[in-house]
């Protein structure tokens, strides 16, 4: 008996069909967001494709191809690979950790020759897939049981500890929040979240002790940036000045004084939203937010029509991850949350985050193409 028959797939699609069903509008939105990124990287380089815009374009094209390949591959394959993928990401995190121990200092990436890969970025996806698979295979009754929480908590805790040791507070929080949101969507009892939240308060106080001085400084500076206007608060003050002075329509492309004259820190990476807001104004910022909204709204709508719990949870996990990137980054440059070093999705210069997000969207698109595919609780190839 062929595999497709065994798993009850009587409408197996050809590659051509799958490509036709791929939501090209969403791909276009992704290209639009990334293009805004290229334009801004071109601008912050003073009107030059070097050193950032060209590199970013190449990475994006590679990432886009990977995304489409992921999208057309059967979602059951991804479910099958969820745990191995998680194990791989965890292993790479451990390697980074051990290399740090061996005296190379704080290092967050692996040199793969053609690019530096941050395992913590991969882990965001891997964790979502592993948790989605875990809850896919759980019965309703078991989902509600407390002891079913043990495995997912371990799945979340392992990468959290490793990433925190790097130390990368921003990514740690992203991984943790993504995981918790997934448990929430999977149906873990509401009171557990309320109770955890209350328990979190002493935990936060405890965690404060373990933060590095520069991390504490970031939090303190966030609470009162004007206290240290030339030191740690400088970045956020300059960022707010850039945003505010941009006004409704902005100062014009390559005309941002704060960014072009280098008053703005990290303008090509974490603070690129500020450049958009300064040069293209409130209109530019809102346009970008609208594009993000289209992407996330599409994914959420698709998620409820996906037949498999794995697909639904995976979409939601990716959406939450994507949203957290976006929210934390923008809130950070506007002085709403502390500066934690989270890039703006698909726009900030950098390979790992770009790849993570495109791979993530690949999975969302795959789930959309294969939304009719139902997968038995026992597993994809059980």
């Amino acid at each position: 008996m062929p595999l497709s028959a065994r798993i009850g797939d009587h409408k197996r699609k050809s590659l051509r069909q799958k490509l036709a069903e791929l939501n090209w509008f969403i791909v276009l939105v992704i290209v639009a967001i990334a293009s805004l990124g290229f334009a801004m990287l071109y601008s912050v380089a003073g009107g030059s494709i070097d050193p950032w815009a060209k590199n970013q374009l190449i990475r994006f094209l590679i990432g886009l191809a990977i995304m489409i390949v992921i999208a057309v591959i059967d979602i059951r394959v991804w479910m099958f690979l969820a745990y191995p993928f998680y194990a791989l990401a965890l292993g790479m995190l451990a390697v980074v950790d051990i290399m740090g121990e061996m005296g190379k200092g704080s290092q967050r990436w692996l040199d793969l020759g053609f690019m530096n890969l941050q395992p913590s970025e991969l882990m965001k996806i891997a964790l979502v897939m592993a948790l989605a698979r875990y809850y896919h295979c759980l019965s309703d009754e078991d989902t509600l049981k407390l002891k079913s929480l043990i495995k997912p908590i371990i799945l979340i805790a392992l990468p959290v500890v490793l990433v925190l040791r790097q130390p990368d507070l921003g990514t740690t929080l992203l991984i943790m929040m993504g995981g918790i949101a997934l448990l929430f969507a999977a149906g873990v009892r509401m009171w557990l979240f309320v109770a955890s939240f209350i328990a979190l308060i002493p935990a936060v106080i405890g965690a404060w002790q373990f933060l590095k001085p520069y991390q504490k400084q970031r939090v303190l500076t966030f609470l009162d940036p004007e206290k240290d206007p030339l030191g740690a608060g400088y970045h956020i003050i300059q960022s707010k000045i850039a945003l505010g002075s941009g006004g409704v329509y902005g100062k014009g492309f390559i005309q941002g004084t704060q960014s072009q004259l280098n008053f703005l820190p990290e303008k090509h990476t974490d603070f690129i939203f500020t450049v958009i807001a300064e040069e293209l104004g409130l209109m530019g910022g809102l346009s970008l937010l609208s594009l993000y909204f289209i992407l996330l709204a599409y994914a959420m709508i698709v998620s409820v029509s996906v037949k498999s719990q794995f697909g639904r949870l995976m979409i939601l996990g990716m959406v939450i991850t994507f949203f957290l990137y976006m929210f934390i980054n923008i809130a950070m440059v506007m002085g709403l949350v502390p500066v934690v070093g989270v890039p703006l999705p698909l726009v900030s210069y950098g390979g790992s985050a770009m790849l993570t997000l495109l791979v993530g969207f690949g999975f969302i698109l795959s789930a959309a193409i294969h939304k009719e595919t139902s997968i038995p609780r026992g597993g994809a190839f059980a």
Partner: protein
Amino acid sequence: MQPSDKNKLKMFTRRATILSGGMMLLSSALIGRMYYLQVTSRSQYELLAEQNRISMRLLAPKRGEILDRYGRAIATSTTDYRVNVIPEETEGLQETLKTLGEYVPISASDNERIVKAAAKQRSFLPISVANNLDWKTFSNVNVNMPDLPGIQPDVGTSRFYPERELAAHLIGYVGSVSEQELNGDPLLELPEFKIGKNGIEKVLDEKLRGSAGNTKVEVNVLGRVIRELSRQDSISGDDVRLTIDLDIQKFAANRVRDESAAIIVMDVHSGELLGMASTPSFDPNDFNGGISQKKWDSLRGDIRKPLINKAVSGQYSPWSTFKMIVALAALEEGIITAEDTKFCNSRYRIGNRIAHCWNKNGHGHINVIQALSQSCDVYFYDLALEVGIEKIHDMAARFGLGERFNIGIMSEARGINPNNEWKMGNQGVRWQGGDTANVGIGQGFVSTTPLQLAVMGARLVNGGMAVKPKIFFNDEEHETVHENMGISPENLRIVLQGMEDVYNHPRGTAFPYRSRNKDYKLGGKTGTTQVTRISTAERQEGVRKNEEKEWIERDHALFVGYGPVEAPKYSVAVLVEHGGGGSSVASPIARDMLEFLLDRDKEKEIEIPGQEV
């Protein structure tokens, strides 16, 4: 669909809706924040962004010049050719400096200073390599610019005193702004800015300074200038024109160059000071870039006090030059006439002490004219006691003694014109007859400055006009008619006869130093200021000659001269500290000075602007 999956979907949908709601809530917070920053607070942040990017740079104004009465520069601003290096534009600082060394001498210490500065400051800021280059060197550098990447030829201005020490005391000098002098004016904080530190440079600093211009430039976060946005040029300082005639100044300063001396030359009608020399002097150019400690110490340590303007700050007992005042007071009071005589046997009893005349043989029977020309001390001891201190004091005051004229230069001293009130106020003791006798020959409490003596001389010879000394040239004030002091012309004529005889009568104290072979005559009065008291023992053994004494113990030589006698034009006061006798040392100097002035007027027919000769 299995029932279990249906439940799962139901649960998922509910929870996903809650999460979506949460995400939308958070997104609205972002939009709200964006609106707040970019719309509500926009103007505030716009201002901050402008402050970030726009930097105001001051443009230093050109300092006004100080000119003599004919517009010749005494203090000027010269073009200063400099060479700077911008480290980041070089292809290796050391190599560039080495190449530059072929055209401009760069000492090892300069080299070290440049390397140090390059390590400390941002690499796009220029570092000074050499200043005050001559045109040839400077143009050489310019021609070879292609081989000198990062080298920046620069043209600035610096203060220059072409006459060097000639009028240093009067003009003063400029120097870098000290911490105490900062008053919030940003101009003073410019690194190369100089302000007046002494003399006219200091007194008229604000007038000479001008006002700063500025340029608005766009800078990046490192302070590098990106472009100029607007520019307002600076306004040069005003020039200051003095009444000083550089030729006269030059002659005066050179005539007493080797002495510790002062010469004042004054126009007796206008009061304009034509020359004011004080020696020894210093070169104000040395102060421009900060004087070296060694030079400063040697100036400070010199007992001849080169830093003091003796012409206005030095206070000396006038001795015999004061006798005209006593004589005039007596004549005006009707106590004596031109014919009345007194007898001098060289000794005069004042209370229980014996005072001596300088002439130990005595002058015999002499009238007031002879007493002046021969400078008899006994005559004036007696006359002063007859007139009384208050009359003498009043007459001295009318002639400007004890008065600060506030001509507008630094450290003008007042001197002392004493009387009973002054002594009560200063010493708490009543005025004594002996004090009056001392003042009668210009010693004791009375003290004067060379400037005051020149003014006294001018007022005596100009017909008793209360002329005031002036140093700043002003065409309108030139013709000012001065107040007549109301002194009898006949009495003035008597005193002037005495002064004429000082040079021209065979018994006059300055007869050997008279003007010869001239078609004009000079007049004046000698004064010899004893610096040390002559003891009784010394007097019996024979008074030491000045040449036998230490320099510091020698007498000051004074002379108040004028000329020509026929129609007085110039008043000259000469002081030579520890020079010896007023007749032997000061009177020839005054003669030479007056001859220079009068010969020059005759030969060159130079007309003093605005004055009928």
